[in-house]
């Protein structure tokens, strides 16, 4: 009796496994066929290094429309106006944009490129921290492509072969809820005042979040450090923690709105975006770029070498670096990389430029080696600075 029952259980289990295997096999040929079809149609697009290679922008649009889809990854809709950019692109060209993992990180993007070679759901285009763009290019993960306005991108903000180029950036800023904070801090030195006890937050932790890392770098510059020496930044946060002012909660629109993070060190475009978002909800969010710690940084665009929709990926880049695309970033308070040239030829939207937080002087950027060294110092010392 007992053994026959086990036999039945075993049989049932074997059947289950067999059925699920069968189902898996059944779905496999379909995916294979799809990839094959799209690959043959867009063979030339996959190797094109400029729109001219395909016979001009019109031909690129045609090929992209034929593909009909674009996979983007880690583009939060409330980050630098990406929501509107995706919507405008989709409507303009009739291309369905599949947005994956909007809250992910640069490391997630690189992982997706590496692990999904040849799959339909691999990301087509990437928006990366500069360090990830550099290391990805070194590993040969990107398809070189030069957008039509490539020559206008300032030197030092693009790869000579077009493997990656900066897209938009901004300054580290201090956002402050003027309804809850009587006198908003204007500088890093201000943040140490006792009146800000438990109120100073960042957008994540600096060993993981790019904007928080920039916040530590800016604090270093404000406290006698340099691009070569981020340690004063760590010391500053140690002091901030000792004063009881450091608030470890990651600032998000939700924590800003309910007052848990009334002061937040973040990119100026994110903080400025909150101002609009919250005005209707009674939060008076003020944004300052601290004069004592000015630190600017840009993100970079790249095309996946194995993009499942190579033409759409290239069209997306052309769109982002068109006047329309650059002004859309500007609308999200980000400073697009073509802003200097657009200001000189008058194509930048002056009303939007006027709304950007005021900054004196031109931004300076640390070199790759300086950033790498700063990260090592940070990774080793950050926990010790703020824990306890």
């Amino acid at each position, binding site marked *: 009796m007992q053994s026959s029952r*086990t036999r039945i259980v075993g049989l049932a*289990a074997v059947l289950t496994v067999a059925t699920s295997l069968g189902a898996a096999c059944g779905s496999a040929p379909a995916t294979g066929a799809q990839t094959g079809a799209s690959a043959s149609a867009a063979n030339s697009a996959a190797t094109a290094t400029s729109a001219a290679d395909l016979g001009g922008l019109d031909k690129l649009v045609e090929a992209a429309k034929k593909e009909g889809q674009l996979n983007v990854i880690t583009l939060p809709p409330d980050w630098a106006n990406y929501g509107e950019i995706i919507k405008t692109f989709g409507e303009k060209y009739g291309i369905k944009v599949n947005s994956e993992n909007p809250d992910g*990180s640069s490391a997630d993007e690189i992982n997706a490129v590496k692990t999904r070679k040849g799959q339909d759901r691999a990301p087509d285009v990437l928006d990366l921290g500069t360090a990830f763009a550099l290391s990805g290019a070194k590993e040969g993960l990107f398809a070189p492509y030069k957008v039509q306005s490539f020559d206008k991108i300032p030197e030092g903000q693009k790869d000579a072969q077009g493997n990656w180029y900066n897209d938009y950036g901004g300054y580290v800023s201090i956002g402050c809820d003027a309804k809850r904070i009587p006198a908003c801090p204007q500088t890093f030195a201000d943040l140490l005042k006792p009146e800000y006890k438990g109120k100073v937050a960042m957008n994540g932790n600096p060993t*993981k979040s790019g904007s928080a890392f920039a916040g530590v770098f800016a604090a270093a510059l404000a406290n006698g450090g340099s691009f070569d020496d981020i340690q004063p930044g760590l010391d500053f946060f140690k002091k901030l923690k000792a004063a009881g002012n450091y608030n*470890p909660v*990651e600032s998000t629109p939700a924590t800003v709105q309910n007052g848990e993070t009334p002061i937040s060190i973040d990119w100026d475009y994110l903080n400025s975006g909150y101002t609009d978002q919250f005005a209707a909800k009674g939060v008076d969010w003020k944004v300052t770029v601290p004069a004592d710690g000015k630190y600017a940084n840009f993100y970079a665009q790249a095309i996946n070498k194995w993009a499942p929709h190579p033409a759409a990926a290239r069209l997306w880049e052309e769109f982002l670096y068109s006047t329309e695309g650059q002004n859309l970033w500007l609308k999200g308070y980000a400073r697009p990389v073509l802003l200097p040239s657009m200001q000189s030829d008058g194509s930048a939207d002056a009303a939007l430029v006027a709304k950007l937080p005021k900054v004196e002087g031109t931004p300076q950027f640390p070199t790759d080696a300086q950033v790498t060294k700063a990260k090592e110092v940070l990774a080793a010392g950050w926990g010790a600075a703020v824990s306890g």
Partner: protein
Amino acid sequence: MIETTSAAPAPLPLKSRGEGGGRARTRSAGWTGALPLLVFVGLAFGVPAAALLGGAFTAGGAPSTANLTESLRGAYLTAMLSSVKLSAIVAVAGAVLGAFLAQAVVTSRLRALREAVLTASGVLANFGGVPLAFAWIATLGNSGVLTTRLGLGDLGWNLYSFWGLVLVYLYFSVPLMVLVIVPALDGLRPQWREAAQNNGATTWQFWRHVGIPVLTPTLLGGVVLLFGGAFAAYATAAAMVGTVVPLVTLQIADALAGNVLIGHENVALALSLDMIVVAGLVMAVYLPLQRRSARWLR
């Protein structure tokens, strides 16, 4: 059943031989039945474990123990020790509190109370992650409802600390312990207590010599379970304390999936390996103790 009763009076060697043969037969049949499970376990645990080992012992493309060395010093070591300390405190405190709560519920005459507590435990034991963190932040954070109403901030209250995190972890650990231990408490037969009382034992003596020894396997199992839960928890801590309380899971996330660190993936794998070793050590302490006291529950 009938067969065994009829075989009982038969001579001893014969019986044992017969039983042994039967057991062997069922065991071999059982193995084939378990085969799909074993294949599943092999795939679901074996493949990641192999990948983890491979990665952890590779640095710069060559076999090396550099990742392991790195994972056991500096900030990573601090995080590991802090994780172990946090999990141990949560496990022991959660087990004790949960056991007392469960005993109160089991001995209560109110059927409705028992049902209510068990249902609530079932829900709360599964309440974790970011929603849990925000619930606590909204209630007891720096500008939380209770913090501002009761002026807790001026009294030195700070949710974003080691003990704040212990409190939040207990919030889901205690209900889990209740769920684990209630069946065991139900299994404590009233006759044992009556027998003890008839022989003049006090309540303390009953618990000291009967109750607690019988419950030990379940209590230990609960402690191990709570330890594992707290040791592996990530999302709640990430949303609530960031790096203020260094935890190994947070370090793994930073190294594996961030916008800042590049090339630390294999250190993250080495950290995972360290976690497996710690979990293995805890199990190694638990298993022999459990086996020793398990005979009471037969």
